[in-house]
């Protein structure tokens, strides 16, 4: 099958099998920043923003979302020009091996785009689908708070 998507603001045609997940279609299409962890919807490594909502792309069939807008971590910023959320993760030391980071960043982005001033409970709920095996979450929380503060201050 073939399908047209808008990925990180750019139209792209992806080829995939009818039973392919969005995760597989994205990775085969070169978007390797979307990580494959559990493949069962439990770890959040594959999280992307689909038409404005956070989803685990391993639990979405590619065929069912043809025509959609998808945002991955690379659509937010680059190494030279990181998004404030990405910079906040670096500054707060919220990264160790980095495997969970693209998913964490996308969950943070999905939260802050709807709720610029979240409470700790709202942060906990927004990130409840993302697992990290390294950081212990405290610094991830710090990063989300820092990103929220900087985005509120600087727009």
């Amino acid at each position, binding site marked *: *099958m073939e399908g047209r998507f808008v990925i990180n603001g750019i139209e792209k045609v992806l080829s995939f099998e*009818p*039973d392919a*997940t969005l995760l597989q279609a994205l990775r085969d299409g070169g978007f390797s920043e979307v990580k494959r962890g559990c493949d069962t*919807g*439990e770890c*959040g490594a594959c*999280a992307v923003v*689909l038409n404005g*909502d*956070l*989803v*685990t792309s391993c*639990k*979405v*069939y590619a*065929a*069912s979302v043809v025509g959609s807008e998808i945002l991955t971590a690379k659509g937010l910023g680059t190494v030279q020009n990181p998004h404030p959320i990405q910079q906040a993760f670096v500054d707060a030391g919220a990264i160790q091996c980095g495997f969970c980071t693209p998913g964490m960043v996308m*969950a943070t982005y*999905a939260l802050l785009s709807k709720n610029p001033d979240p409470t700790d409970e709202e942060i906990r*709920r*927004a*990130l*409840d*689908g993302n697992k990290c095996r390294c950081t212990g979450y405290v610094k991830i929380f710090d990063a989300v708070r820092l990103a929220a503060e900087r985005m509120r201050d600087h727009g």
Partner: protein
Amino acid sequence: MSSKWLFPSEIDELVGLLERDNPLVHGGGTGIPRGRVRSSEVVVDLGRMGWDRCYEDGKDILLGATCSFSRTVEELSRIRPGHILVSALSQAASTPLRNRITLGGSVAFFPLWSDLMGPLLALGASVDLVGTVSGRYPIDHFVSNRGLFRGSVIRSIVVPDVPMDGWYYREVRVGFDYPGFTMTLLAQRDGEVLADFRGACVGTKERFKVFNDVSESLKGIRYGDVDVNAVAEKLDLDFPDKKSGSGEYFGQVAKVWFERGLAELLER
């Protein structure tokens, strides 16, 4: 086999496909294994049917079958803040999954860990079907007799709009776990009297138990006269052994939570 994905947007088109092709129906897709897509000639995606809203309809609230859990929480919180489905569905799974899991898929799939089914069973909800069998059917009848409804899909879930105090509990070790069981209790107060009481437990050996006997025995009793321990003791709940504990263990834990829930409801 190469599956063909179809996206009907009209009822006639959908019903035609259901009758002709015996397709695999796709709600959100989180419960459909890839093997099932691979082995299906036709996959029918309900995403363009426009069944993704919740609204009031006279004495009922209608929940569209393709509403995601998140959408349902958002819309119900506006229509009926504090609704029992709001507390249940906002605790289910995780944020990215709640954004995908649909109500129709969850009723049809009815996993043992469902956060949706307890509240629906306790509330006495019905399903509104289209296809080979159409019309409204009580939800307990639908889930217990799936064979009778082959070739039909859920268009919406009809929930009686009754003002009741609700209490919901999911038995998990950490928030993200699939619950070992869920317990829903609802009470309606009329002055000092318990005008109505309903409840359901999901995750038992028969998948679910609606507390009809308890309801009958409690209706009309003064709040202060309810013997919470005695009611819990009489509960007839039989659980299968699960990874997270034996059937006997879940039986004990369920009684404790029933007791706590009922006591809390009576104190409100």
